[in-house]
C-alpha cells in the first residue's frame, strides 16, 4: 500500500503483520473471529478482541486488549449458549528493523509477546508469542507467522502451536488480495488441533484499515472467518 505505515495493521486475517505504529500514535483495533464445527461437533464460537494500540517507539507498539467470547453447543438437541468476558491483558509487538519504508529491508522480522489473565479461571494466565517474518517483493507481501500459546494454571497447562503463512498482493491503491493458511496444533493429550485455508483481503483508507480472511476448514473445523479493523487517532 502506498501510504506510510500509519497503523499497526496487517494485510492478513489470521496472521500478525509486521507494520507497527509511529511513536505516540494511538489506534483502536477490533477483531471478530468465528470458529464453527470444530472436532466434528456443531459447536460455534465467536470471539471479540478489542483494545487500544499505542506506538511506544517507531518500532515498538503496545496493545491493551480485552477478549469476549460467545459460544454455543448442542447436546441432545438442546442448545446451550454463553457470552463471557474471557480475558484481558497486555501485548507488545516489536519490529526488529526500521519502520521507514526507504530504510527497511525486504525481509522484516517482528516478535510479539502477550500475557492475558483469564477472568473466569482466576489463576489461569495465557502467554502468547509470535515470530513473524514478512518479505516484500514489489506489490507482493509474503508472511510466515509462527505462534505459540500457553494456558498456565495452578493445576493444568495447555500448549499449542499456531503456525501460519500467507501471501498478499496489492491489486489497487489501498486494496490487497491474497490467501493464507492458519492452524492451531495442540501439544497435549486433548489433541484439539485444527487448520483452515482461504482467501484474504485488506483495505486501507486514510486513518482506517480493515483486513480479513475466510478460512475454510481442512482439518477438524468447518469454517474460520475472521475480520479485523483499526482506526488511528
Amino acid at each position, binding site marked *: 500500500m502506498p*501510504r*506510510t505505515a*500509519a497503523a499497526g495493521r496487517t494485510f492478513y486475517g489470521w496472521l500478525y503483520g509486521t507494520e507497527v*505504529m509511529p*511513536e*505516540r500514535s494511538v489506534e483502536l483495533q477490533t477483531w471478530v473471529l468465528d470458529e464453527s464445527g470444530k472436532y466434528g461437533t456443531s459447536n460455534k464460537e465467536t470471539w471479540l478482541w478489542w483494545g487500544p494500540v499505542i506506538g511506544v517507539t*517507531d518500532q515498538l507498539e503496545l496493545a491493551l486488549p480485552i477478549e469476549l467470547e460467545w459460544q454455543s453447543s448442542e447436546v441432545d438437541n438442546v442448545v446451550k449458549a454463553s457470552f463471557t468476558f474471557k480475558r484481558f491483558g497486555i501485548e507488545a509487538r516489536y519490529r526488529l528493523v526500521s519502520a521507514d519504508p*526507504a530504510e527497511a529491508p525486504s525481509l522484516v522480522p517482528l516478535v510479539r509477546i502477550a500475557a492475558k489473565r483469564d477472568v473466569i479461571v482466576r489463576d489461569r494466565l495465557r502467554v502468547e508469542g509470535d515470530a513473524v517474518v514478512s518479505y516484500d517483493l514489489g506489490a507482493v507481501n509474503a508472511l510466515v507467522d509462527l505462534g505459540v500459546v500457553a494456558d498456565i494454571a495452578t493445576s493444568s497447562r495447555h500448549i499449542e502451536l499456531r503456525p501460519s503463512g500467507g501471501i498478499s498482493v496489492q491489486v489497487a491503491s489501498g486494496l490487497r488480495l491474497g490467501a493464507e493458511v492458519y492452524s492451531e496444533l495442540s501439544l497435549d493429550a486433548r489433541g484439539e488441533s485444527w487448520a483452515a485455508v482461504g482467501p484474504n483481503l485488506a483495505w486501507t483508507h486514510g*486513518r482506517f484499515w480493515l483486513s480479513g480472511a475466510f478460512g475454510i476448514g481442512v482439518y477438524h473445523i468447518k469454517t474460520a472467518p475472521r475480520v479485523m479493523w483499526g482506526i*488511528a487517532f
Partner: protein
Amino acid sequence: MRSLRSIASSAIAAIAVVAASGGGAHPAAAGPGGRIIGTVKVTETDGKPVSGPDVIVYMLGFSEPPGDQVATVAQKGRRFVPDLVSITVNERVSFPNNDPFLHNVFSQSPDRQFDLGSYKRGESKEKQFPKAGVVDVYCNIHPEMAATIIVVPNRRHTRVDPTGHFVLEGVPPGEWTVFAYSRRSTRPTSGKVTVKAGADTNVELAIVRGAEPQHLNKYGEKYKEGTQVYKDKDK
C-alpha cells in the same frame, strides 16, 4: 497543492531517473570547475518585488557523492526553521523539536514517504533521503507547519542570500541548466548556462511567488477547523 510543486518535483525526478539509469546525468568530471554567479528576482503575482525570500538554486545533469553534513529543519514557534533546504542525494536531515509541545513530522511525497511519529521538546529524529526529488514535510498536529526539502543529485546547490545573489563554485565545465526554487513558486524557473573551467558565468533568474499551497494531514484529510492557516510572514 500538488499541481505547482509537482511540476518542479517531476523535473527533478525525471533527471534523477535518468541519472539512475546512466543516461543524461553523469558523474562530475574531476579537475577545475567554473563558477556560476547569479541573481534571483522574486515578485508576487501582481508584480511587487519580494525582499529576502528563501530561494534555493540547484543544478541537474550530473551527479556527485554526498557530503558529511547533516541538514537541520527545526520545529520552533510552530514553524519549520528553515522551511526550505537543499541536500544532496543520500544526505540526512535532522528534525529537532525546539517547541515546548509535541510535534509530528511526516511526508507523503512520492519521492520520500515517512512518518516520524510525535515527539517532544529536546528530541530529534533523522531521515536519509536516497532519491532525488522535492519532498514536502508537514506536521500532522499543526497545519501551519510546512517545509520543503530539495534533494539534488550533486552538491552544486545553495541558498540565495537576502539580496538575491548566489554563487555556485566548482561547477564542472559544460552546458547545464540552473534552477531556482521557492516554496511558493507558481512555476519552476531555470536558465541555461555554459560553464568553462576557471571562468565565471553569469545568470539571472526570476520567480513569481503565489500563495502558500494548502495541504492535507497524513491521513489524506483536511485539518480540523479551528487550527490554522499558514501565516504569511515575510517569506
